[in-house]
């Protein structure tokens, strides 16, 4: 057995490039879009790591690359000590059983012609965890765990509401008996009253089945609620990572500060006195990222150095890392 104190997942300097501009428009030559730009992270066993950032920041690509659903251009992912790019197809498939994903829209990830029971049984059959004749009681048990009645096994996806479909999506991920689940905007499409049900379910399952989650979402309040640690991404890079209480009470990166101040609080009195940091402009295109620190054209605290030099992710306090020149050692303002 592996050392239980060793991280379950180690991501080392991961890079993902997409080639954009197909043949039709390729006159000017192929252009590379760097979606993930040198990300290093660890996920400890049993923890939930929240990954936040705005559309196009690379958080979903990172999640899929961790599962090797997208092959990285550079860098490495190690799962339980084994480098995924060293594995052949069969070994990768065996390891994939232990890594599952729950998507935002469960409807588009369920086959409309398969009963939801069959959909949940499929991973069991593929991985030899159940046979064609004996999957039913195992699926019924999973349905019970995620809060669906056994009568629902023979129904079809269109008969389910959004929240119920997400329960099916979770049951399907659990069917393979995984250690690790990527939740990619898994509760984002749900109404708040239902969202709270699913968040509570995910939390219960984590304790009960000793799961590790990479929880990708754009809703910071949800991420704060469910995560142990939180990483913030901007334009393909991690700009800050810390224990959640640290990150939310003492954000260091100007982008994290702006992001937190933009999240509305459902309380009139709290909202009325809040100071908001409005970042001018929009997230630049990853096709032509700014020089130096990618935030510098929008950053209220930008200095001359930010235009030229990409800040590295450095420790700043216990378990708190930030990629910002404000906190680099040669900046006198930081101490």
């Amino acid at each position, binding site marked *: 057995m592996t050392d239980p104190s060793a991280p379950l997942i180690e991501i080392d300097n991961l890079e993902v490039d997409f080639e954009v501009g197909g043949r039709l428009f390729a006159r000017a030559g192929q252009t590379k879009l760097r979606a993930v730009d040198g990300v290093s992270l660890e996920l400890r066993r049993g923890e939930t790591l929240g990954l936040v950032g705005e559309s196009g920041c690379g958080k979903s690509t990172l999640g899929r690359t961790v599962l090797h659903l997208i092959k990285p251009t550079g860098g490495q992912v190690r799962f339980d000590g084994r480098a995924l790019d060293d594995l052949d197809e069969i070994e990768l498939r065996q390891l994939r059983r232990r890594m599952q994903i729950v998507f935002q829209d469960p409807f588009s990830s369920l086959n409309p012609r398969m009963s939801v029971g069959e959909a949940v049984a499929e991973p069991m059959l593929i991985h030899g965890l159940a046979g064609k004749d004996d999957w039913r009681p195992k699926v019924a048990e999973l349905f019970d765990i995620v809060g669906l009645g056994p009568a629902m096994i023979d129904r079809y996806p269109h008969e389910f509401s959004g929240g119920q479909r997400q329960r099916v999506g979770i049951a399907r991920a659990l069917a393979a008996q995984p250690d690790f689940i990527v939740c990619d905007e898994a509760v984002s499409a749900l109404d708040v009253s239902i969202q709270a049900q699913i968040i509570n379910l995910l939390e219960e399952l984590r304790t009960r089945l000793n799961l590790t989650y990479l929880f990708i979402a754009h809703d910071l309040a949800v991420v704060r609620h469910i995560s142990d640690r939180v990483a913030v991404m901007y334009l393909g890079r991690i700009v800050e990572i810390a224990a*959640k209480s640290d990150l939310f009470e003492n954000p260091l990166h100007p982008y994290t500060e702006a992001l937190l101040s933009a999240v509305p609080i459902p309380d009139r009195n709290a909202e009325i006195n809040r100071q908001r940091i409005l970042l001018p402009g929009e*997230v630049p295109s990853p096709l032509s990222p700014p020089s130096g620190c990618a935030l510098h054209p929008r950053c209220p605290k930008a200095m001359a150095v930010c235009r030229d030099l990409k800040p590295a992710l450095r420790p700043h306090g216990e378990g708190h890392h930030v990629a910002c020149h404000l906190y680099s050692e040669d900046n006198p303002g930081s101490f």
Partner: protein
Amino acid sequence: MTAAAQAPPLLQVRDLAVEFGGDGGVVKAVNGVSFDLHRGEIVALVGESGCGKSVTALALLRLVADPPGRITAGSIHFDGEDLLQIPLPLLRDIRGDRIAMIFQEAMNSLNPVHRIGRQIAEPLSLHRAMPMRDALAKAVDLLRSVRIPEALRRSRDYPHQFSGGMQQRAMIAMGMGCEPDIIIADEPTTALDVTIQAQLLELLQQQVVEKQTSILLITHNLGIVARYADRVNVMYAGRIVEQAKAEDIYDRPRHPYTLGLLQSVPRIDQAIGDKLTPIEGQPPDPINPPPGCPFRPRCRFAVTRCDEDIPPLRRLTDSQSIACWVDVDD
């Protein structure tokens, strides 16, 4: 806003009902909705998917597709006239001119084959008989006012050349063009990232302060409501279940559904570790709603009476009403 509350409301909606008919049965999507909108105030219609908030917004300008939809009852008084009764040509003069609408998906509301500037200029030349040249110049000013950089050059772009946030800003510019009395904003920032969301909502609020525009803000986001709305209508299953000033809704929710909604949202300023309290169950099947109060099957406070009688909206204070036999504050 307090002064405005004394004057008669700019928009007065009474007992509005909208049905959708199909082979599967009739859905009462909006079922007796009444509310007021005064000059220079932001009023929110808040609720979850399928509660009827967007259908209400569409019905205000008679934009509900018929068939399958029908406005079956009610009145919508705007500036002395009932929008449900006036002839369609008169209503067309009001749409986009005195009452503008901003939708969630700007990409679907902008015409992909026309330049942005021209689309913003169109209502100006239509409603204000402005020569196209002047209207185009005004369109550039409007784009500048919603902070589109290089507005003159960008006004010649097509919608696909704009990012999602810029498209939504162009929609707001179009909505503001004729300086409407009312802007109906249906989930205006829902598809956008929080930092862009904040930029746009500040723009809309500025419009209220500077031009005394009134905004009907339709959203599912209780945080946005807390920051921007003066008064709030909470909808559930086609009805308004609570109506109050924004500060009262959050300080002292009185309807079990409002309380349930507030308890189920995680808050960024809340003590870490509190478990969320979801509302158990799901919204009722709109084709076969339960007898009695539609919230009854999910309600923690229900009493026997809730099984039979649908509670009407009743006044608790001058500014707070609930449609509930119980008052969770008791």
